[in-house]
């Protein structure tokens, strides 16, 4: 995401010691800005200012933690206060009943929150957009109502007072500055975790899954798995902050600990600052929280509702005018200014690309066997008893009229569709045939596929798109970047490597499909009409590219309508019509086959030509 100020493609020095990093203006500017949170209340020294700054730290941390799920993974949770409340209540109850220090209790709360997060996330991740949000609201309401109902445990609607033992051990102080230290520490922790995720394979995978679930699967990403990891981290962090905030307020009631309004506010700060960015959530909090707190402080009860009204209005205005948020909109420019400071600037990338996965095995041996594939969509039989055996090292062309079922065959041999009957077996790393169960498993076994209808990760750059593919074999970001560059060069995308994928024309997107698939270092490459939309010279380039790829040991199956290209390229051709294989053989024989000509041009043509 190059539009984001702290995006991974930006100038983050690589493999440098923490001390060396301090000379990077992005690092020292961030640290200087953050230290203001500790310095300003020291200078002004008023209980009110102190309270505002603790609140900023707490909500900044909550929003940063929320952003890992809501921004990076794009799962718009509006029930995140579940974790905040669980953290608070667990810690308070452990103090009350077992005299356990909140420093220990907060981890128990985090563990419980993680379990609840998995319980909510696992079933709900299949829900789309607003329905996911609604489900999270429903979970929050259920937990809140249960907290009220079981008043024997929680104190019910009347609330719960934290036992007032003073001292660091109990996280309750007379000297209010100590609260700020802890709140600031939690804020730093969440920011660091968020930054680390953003700059790791997980961060790329989350963005990929958010943008295109299918393309992520094809790149070997376990969609549910990465989303769950995001929830686990986010729930734990949110819960820790909730534990601290309960100690700070010393009073818990279900209405505030499991509040829907607070859950919305947390999400809102992220949107204002910039969803999916590292600093956005904190920036949104810093801008909005003081306004609300000042209104509350100055106008008192007469302004009941004022801050909420301001929040809601700001939210609507932001969605209409700056949907990318402040960092998303202005981040790149500010980032450039900062890079001009001493020590800034983009470092040359001298990292050597890692070695590709070697492909071994005997040419000609069967490496993929599809037997009797039948796929029925309701009354329509899209493929009817299709069997294909693929031999190592060949280029197999699949042709047939529109709607013949070619792409449906592809979807079945890459795991995107489960055949109604029939089996697909793929050679495993040990040389034995296996039956993978899901698309990402197919992908990890070395089957790379492109999509006929291109599926770019629109908000990632070309290079980052390719990196998502590389990550399957090379989990380190540096390696992935270098390997992606190598693939970009090979496919002819190097000149536009920093362009966001959504800005590419169709020819470029088709090549990006091939590049991202190649990046997974497949042993079998499934190409679905990659020549479509290419110019004459690009087509020739693609033909050469496919030959080059084959020469490295990769086996290729290509669906293609460009007859000239596919005929010159293929060692063997399979013709599919109305879901059935009607001809198979070398290209010269297939074009003369009567049934093939019938399928393309009709019986009348065949009769007229007297073939």
């Amino acid at each position: 995401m190059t539009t984001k100020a702290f995006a991974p493609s930006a100038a983050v020095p690589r493999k440098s010691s923490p001390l060396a990093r301090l000379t990077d203006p992005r690092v020292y500017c961030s640290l200087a800005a953050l230290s203001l949170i500790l310095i300003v209340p020291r200078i002004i020294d008023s209980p009110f200012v102190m309270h505002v700054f603790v609140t900023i730290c707490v909500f900044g941390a909550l929003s940063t933690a929320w952003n890992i799920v809501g921004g990076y993974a794009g799962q718009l949770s509006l029930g995140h206060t579940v974790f905040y409340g669980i953290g608070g209540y667990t810690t308070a109850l452990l103090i009350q009943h077992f005299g356990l220090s909140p420093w220990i209790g907060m981890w128990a709360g985090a563990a419980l929150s993680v379990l609840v997060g998995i319980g909510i996330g696992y079933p709900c991740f299949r829900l789309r957009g607003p329905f996911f949000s609604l489900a999270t609201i429903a979970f929050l309401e259920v937990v809140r109502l249960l907290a009220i109902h079981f008043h024997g445990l929680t104190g019910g609607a009347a609330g719960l007072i934290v036992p007032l033992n003073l001292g660091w051990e109990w996280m309750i102080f007379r000297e209010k500055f100590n609260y700020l230290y802890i709140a600031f520490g939690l804020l730093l922790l969440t920011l660091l975790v968020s930054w680390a995720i953003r700059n790791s394979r997980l961060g790329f995978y989350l963005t990929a899954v958010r943008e295109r679930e299918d393309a992520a699967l094809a790149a070997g990403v376990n969609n549910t798995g990465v989303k769950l990891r995001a929830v686990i981290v986010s729930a734990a962090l949110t819960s820790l902050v909730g534990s601290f905030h309960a100690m700070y307020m010393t009073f818990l009631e279900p209405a505030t600990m499991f509040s829907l309004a607070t859950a919305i506010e947390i999400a809102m700060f992220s949107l204002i600052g910039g969803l999916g960015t590292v600093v956005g959530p904190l920036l949104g909090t810093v801008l909005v929280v003081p306004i609300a707190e000042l209104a509350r402080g100055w106008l008192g009860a007469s302004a009941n509702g004022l801050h909420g009204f301001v929040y809601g209005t700001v939210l609507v205005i932001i969605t209409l005018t700056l949907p990318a948020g402040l960092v998303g909109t202005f981040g790149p420019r500010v980032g450039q200014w900062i890079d001009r400071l001493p020590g800034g600037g983009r470092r040359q990338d001298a990292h050597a690309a890692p070695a590709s996965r070697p492909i071994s095995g005997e040419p000609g041996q069967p490496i993929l066997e599809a037997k009797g594939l039948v796929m029925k969509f309701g009354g329509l039989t899209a493929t009817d008893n299709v069997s294909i055996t693929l031999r190592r090292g060949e280029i197999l062309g699949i042709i047939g009229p529109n709607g013949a079922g070619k792409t449906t065959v592809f979807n079945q041999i890459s795991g995107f569709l489960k055949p109604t009957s029939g089996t697909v077996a793929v050679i495993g790393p040990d040389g034995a045939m296996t039956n993978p169960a899901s698309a990402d498993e197919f992908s990890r076994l070395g089957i790379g596929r492109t999509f006929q209808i291109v599926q770019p990760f629109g908000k990632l750059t070309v290079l980052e798109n390719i990196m998502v593919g590389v990550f399957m074999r090379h989990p380190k970001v540096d390696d992935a970047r270098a390997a992606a560059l190598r693939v970009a060069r090979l496919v002819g995308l190097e000149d536009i490597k920093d362009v966001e994928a959504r800005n590419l024309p169709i020819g470029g997107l088709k090549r990006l499909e091939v590049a991202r698939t190649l990046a997974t270092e497949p042993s079998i490459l499934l190409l679905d009409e990659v020549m479509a939309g290419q110019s004459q010279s690009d087509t020739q380039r693609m033909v050469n590219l496919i030959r080059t790829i084959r020469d490295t040991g990769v086996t290729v199956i290509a669906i293609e309508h460009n007859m000239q290209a596919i005929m010159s390229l293929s060692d063997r051709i399979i013709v599919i019509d109305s879901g059935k294989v009607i001809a198979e053989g070398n290209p010269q024989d297939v074009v003369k086959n009567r049934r093939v000509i019938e399928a393309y041009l009709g019986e009348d043509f065949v009769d007229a030509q007297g073939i």
Partner: protein
Amino acid sequence: MDVLVQLLINGIMLGSMYAIISVGLTLIFGIVRVVNFAHGEFLMVGMYAVYLLGAYWGLNPYVSAVPVIILLFALGSLVQRFIIQPLLGADEHIQIFATVGLSTALVNLALLVFGADLYSLTVPSARQAVSVGDYTMLTGQIFMLACAVILVAGLHFFMQTTALGRAIRATAQNRNAALLMGVRVDRIYVITFGLGAACVGLASALLMPLYPVTPTIGTYFVLTAFVVVVLGGMRSIYGAFVGAMIIGIVDSLSGYYIAPDLKEVVYFAIFILILIFKPTGLFGFGRGTE
């Protein structure tokens, strides 16, 4: 047995109230394809309007229904025209934030203007008990049931027989095809959003005699309405009607047999289970995962 029948009657009465609110929500979701998180706040606005008309001009809520329905139609149309329409091409999460923001703003505006106090209207004509055998119900509840049935029948008639109804259905099925056939899709959306809000206007006039209005009353009802809409398959007016009756009955029975403060837990649990296991709704009318 007597208790059970009375509870079922109460449930149906409650269900007819949810039906009127949910039909509007279904209309907006099914046609404009936007989940309106501010739907409950429309109800709240309508109820304050009915209250003001009653308290200052002495209008009977059932008379106020007419101006309030018009007011809510206008409110809904304006929201569609100036907030939703510019965002139709935007990411889904932006649309969610927009309606959530509108909801937050309206709740707090009401809190600023009216405070957190309860306001209610005394309408004797709506609170007369009617006895049938051993069972009793209120006239206001009977009105509600009648209106729910008339609303669903009326919408059915409107959608099936009028040119505008056909245009709305065409837009719902395929926006681009409708556009190519000369349907002014943007205008259809504005009208549909207005109609959805107008249903809530009707609901607010019918509710005011029975429930006091507070700034947060919308949140209370809209969450239930979402449960109903999901239960009914999200796109179907009839599904919403049946779903509303089911939730009304569940509400009434679980409040008595389980615990009054856990009845919402019961239907939220149903909601979550339906979303997860049968996202097409109980009758398979729609698709939640689509």
